[in-house]
């Protein structure tokens, strides 16, 4: 199996608080991996480290490319990491509310396009062509996520489910190799969750993107993921296939609490 994301010995301190301690994690090509654990276990902190928002105290994070080369992510800025092929969504949706749906996705194309200020002012042939290409690709992404009818609406006027999908569309627009989803099913009803599950599978299969997701909906996690990492208090307490994790006593203890009976 070719790895896409490889993290070893990752620790993150905030003042005296150790939010992540000595975490090892690996996502292989075309794999869907889930990161679960109680609230405050450090899952989102992990995402923030990997995407460059936080600078980890210790540890190594590497992103592998298709040719077998790898890049160290430590110390890289978020935009640089996105350009290397890592995209993410946010737990509390962070869309560009006062921009249209299409424009949101076009912003995602930013790191794959090049027109600068000069091109904007001159509107020469190359930059016009690039822009039209960007518009069409973005629209195609909206079609894939069933958002095409809303393309000219403001993002803030979308329904909750549509906003979640738009965040995914925007992340896909950056042409990632690795997609991080932070609680994509939060606040969705069972039907929407089912659709989301199909969508995530579809993303993996058609775009060949590896996916790492944080999720609390256990039935979705169990049926969707190839492997699961379980976190508690900043460290990884178990890892394996859904079946293995489900029967792991430490996981059961973390989730159900300790009982003497």
């Amino acid at each position: 199996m070719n790895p896409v994301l490889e993290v070893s010995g990752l620790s993150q301190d905030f003042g005296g608080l150790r939010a992540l301690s000595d975490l090892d994690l690996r996502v292989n090509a075309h794999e869907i991996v889930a990161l679960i654990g109680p609230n405050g276990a450090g899952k989102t902190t992990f995402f923030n480290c990997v995407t460059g928002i936080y600078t980890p105290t210790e540890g190594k994070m590497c992103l592998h490319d298709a040719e077998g080369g790898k890049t160290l992510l430590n110390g890289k800025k978020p935009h640089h990491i996105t350009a290397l092929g890592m995209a993410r969504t946010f737990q509390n949706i962070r869309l560009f509310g006062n921009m249209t749906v299409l424009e949101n996705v076009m912003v995602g194309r930013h790191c794959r396009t090049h027109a600068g200020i000069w091109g904007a002012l001159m509107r020469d042939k190359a930059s016009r062509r690039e822009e039209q290409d960007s518009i069409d690709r973005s629209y195609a992404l909206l079609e894939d996520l069933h958002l095409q009818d809303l393309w000219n609406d403001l993002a803030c006027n979308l329904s909750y489910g549509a906003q979640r999908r738009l965040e995914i569309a925007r992340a896909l627009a950056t042409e990632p190799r690795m997609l991080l989803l932070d609680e994509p099913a939060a606040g969705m009803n069972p039907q929407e969750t089912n659709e989301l599950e199909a969508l995530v599978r579809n993303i993996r299969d058609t775009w060949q993107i590896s996916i790492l997701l944080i999720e609390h909906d256990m039935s979705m996690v169990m049926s969707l993921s190839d492997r699961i990492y379980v976190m508690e208090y900043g460290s990884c307490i178990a890892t394996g296939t859904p079946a293995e994790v489900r029967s792991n006593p430490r996981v059961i203890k973390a989730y159900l609490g300790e009982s003497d009976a």
Partner: protein
Amino acid sequence: MRRVIKALLTAVWFMILTFPVMCIKVNSIDNTVNWYPERAFWLGVGVFVMALIWDWCFARKSRGLPVLSLGAIGESMGNALRRLQEQPHYRGGALILLALVMLAMPVVSSIYQTNIMISALLYVMLALGLNIVVGLAGQLVLGYVAFYAVGAYAYGLLHQFFGLGFWVCLPIGGFLAVLFGLVLGFPVLRLRGDYLAIVTLGFGEIVRLALLNWPSLTGGPSGISNIPRPGLFGLEMDINISTIYIYYLVLAAVVLTIIVISRLKNSRVGLALQALREDEIACEAMGIDITRVKLSAFALGSCWAGFAGVIFAAKTTYINPSSFGFMESAMILSMVVLGGMGSIVGVVIAAMILILAPEYLRAFSEYRMLIFGAIMVIMMIFRPQGLVSGERRKYKISALQKKTLEGRS
């Protein structure tokens, strides 16, 4: 009825609140006190009416309706604009009409009027420049006038010491302003919205104080005088012709500004600027180098202030630090706020209203700053999107066009 009582109580409260400042004047030299009880009465009446309107606006706002008083004007203006945009016929006609009026203005009216129009157009330029930074990129800059001062003093000083002319100084002034913009921009990159506002305010004040306290270079409080008006191939011009010439110059500059900014707004860089305004963290996560985008916004915004400064110096032929105080920055900001953050048409209209209204409604001119202040508060509460909102770019989507073509055949 409950509302009326509430408004009455509000009126009484304000009458008491403002009583000392409004109704007493002490002359400590002749030791006399002047009372103005009638002011309290009129204030009470005014507050009563305003409280009723305020309450009503709130009721509408909480039901999600647009607030009529301002909203209706904005809405109808927005609708009219949309209609204009949708029908190229009308749009062309309106544009030609506007162009004719603007072109004919200095010929048919007096020099006095032309001068007022020049300063209004200069403010349009400044407001559009600030609109890049505040409206598009969402970086609240309170010291914008510092860049204006840089442009003006660049021309004044370069002329005084090196005898350079207007056309040479125009690009230099813009360039120096950009340089200042970057000098300010680098250190403030990490600052959050409100801290950024205060730092830029401090920067603006430092520039003004430096101009004031460095008499050997800047002439101190008395400034620089005898700055030449712009020339045209060495032609001799009397003051009237020269004013008209400057008018056309500023008009051209404004048109250029509008073209540049609307192109910028709709470009890849413009989208990045707007994304930065909406959410800095998501913006970075989309692969946008926010350092670069912020610096571009600062550079572009200050560049325009620099140009406007050079033209201002050439127009007045005399500059001193008092033209570049915080109130100037606040005034330009209130144009952006009133017009609608990021809206080009809105900002142009707002700048024209805010400069021309006090000029022509003499009764208002005293109350000008008072009204500017009130506008900023009221707009934020009832119509934060500004007078003109919902200006949206049209996109041509190839897939959709193909579909309609197929549908037709």
